[in-house]
């Protein structure tokens, strides 16, 4: 699995994840509250400067993540070009660019383990309500393991389908894929229970 996190170590990698997320939330809200083109242009330039401070390779990688905006930028250009409200169009386009680039910047400079630590911290009040946050971290690890397993199973099923049929497998392959996956999930559940379950080391001494 190709990660979105930048392999290039930058100064921003060393800032605590919580601080980056807090700043990102505040700045995103601010971007959506202002309608002044000058402010949004300044914000976009500041975001570009932020990427540049991490190097040109980093900037190029960041630009690649913005490709999904093209159809929308084209749409805005056409729409506002035709209706003659160029300024409103520029405001919308700059806001989209700055908000998305800023969010990607945080993702690119924050390690998975740091993000998981923030998630666990955010969820910790739920522990008082009796919800095991340990289950969440375990579930994340399970999804990471299950996903490649599902893909492999799907490829294997598609191969055996092709060995027997001249036609392509299509959607029908999802049924045996899901059935096998459900069996595997049940085996994992049994294995977990056999090892004492997922709740066995909760500090309030349930065992």
């Amino acid at each position, binding site marked *: *699995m*190709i*990660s*979105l996190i930048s392999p290039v170590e930058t100064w921003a990698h060393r800032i605590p994840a919580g601080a980056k997320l807090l700043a*990102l939330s505040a700045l*995103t809200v601010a971007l*959506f509250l202002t309608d002044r083109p000058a402010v949004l242009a300044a914000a976009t330039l500041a975001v570009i400067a932020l990427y540049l401070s991490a190097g040109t390779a980093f900037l190029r990688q960041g630009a690649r*993540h913005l490709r*999904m*905006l093209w159809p*929308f930028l084209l*749409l805005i250009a056409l*729409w506002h070009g035709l209706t003659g409200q160029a300024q*409103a169009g520029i*405001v*919308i386009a700059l806001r*989209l660019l700055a*908000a*998305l680039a800023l*969010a*990607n910047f*945080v*993702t*690119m400079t*924050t390690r*998975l383990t740091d*993000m*998981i630590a923030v*998630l666990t911290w955010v969820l910790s009040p739920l522990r008082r309500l009796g919800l095991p946050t340990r289950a*969440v971290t*375990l*579930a*994340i690890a*399970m*999804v*990471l393991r*299950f*996903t490649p*397993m*599902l*893909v492999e199973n*799907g490829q294997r099923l598609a191969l055996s389908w092709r060995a027997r049929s001249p036609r392509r497998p299509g*959607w029908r392959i*999802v*049924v045996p894929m*899901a*059935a096998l*996956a*459900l*069996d*595997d*999930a*049940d085996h*994992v*559940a049994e294995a*977990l*229970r056999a090892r004492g*379950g*997922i*709740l066995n080391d909760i500090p309030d001494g349930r065992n």
Partner: protein
Amino acid sequence: MERNMTRIALFAALIAALGLIPSLTLAFGVPITAQSMGVMLAGAILGAKRGALAVLLFMALVALGLPLLAGGRGGLGAFVAPTSGFFLGWPVAAFVTGLIVERLRSGPLAVTVALASIIGGIVVMYAFGIVGMSMALDKTLAECTLLVTAFIPGDIIKAVLTGLITQALARSRPAALLSRS
């Protein structure tokens, strides 16, 4: 507890795996991905609560920075893009789909699930998507609705497939259909 959890994790993984299937292109040039079918399936098979939890778990992984969305997208940017409304509507879509399958017990399963997927996975999801798009692009709700209508036929196909897949699974693994247990 363990069984519920592994199934929730499994369906989160299924949504991720379906995102890796290359997107089909309909006759009139609109790409459709299998990923939103995973959301419908999670609701239809796991039921309202567990289905929504599976989707939330998947969204958490995307937020953490994993490129699990169709086309290899992901990270925090997935929450501020023009199409983020659809993404944010996913847990509600799975919940509503599951709720309808749980409550509406008369009639053939495939038809009920297809209907539930149309209401949860299309009506509810598009409601979120259109509001999100209208906020991001600063256009009226009616204008944004027009922009997304081209994607509705593809999603109806996915709802029908969700019905057929759920029925086939209910036959081969009756105990797996938690929404009806």
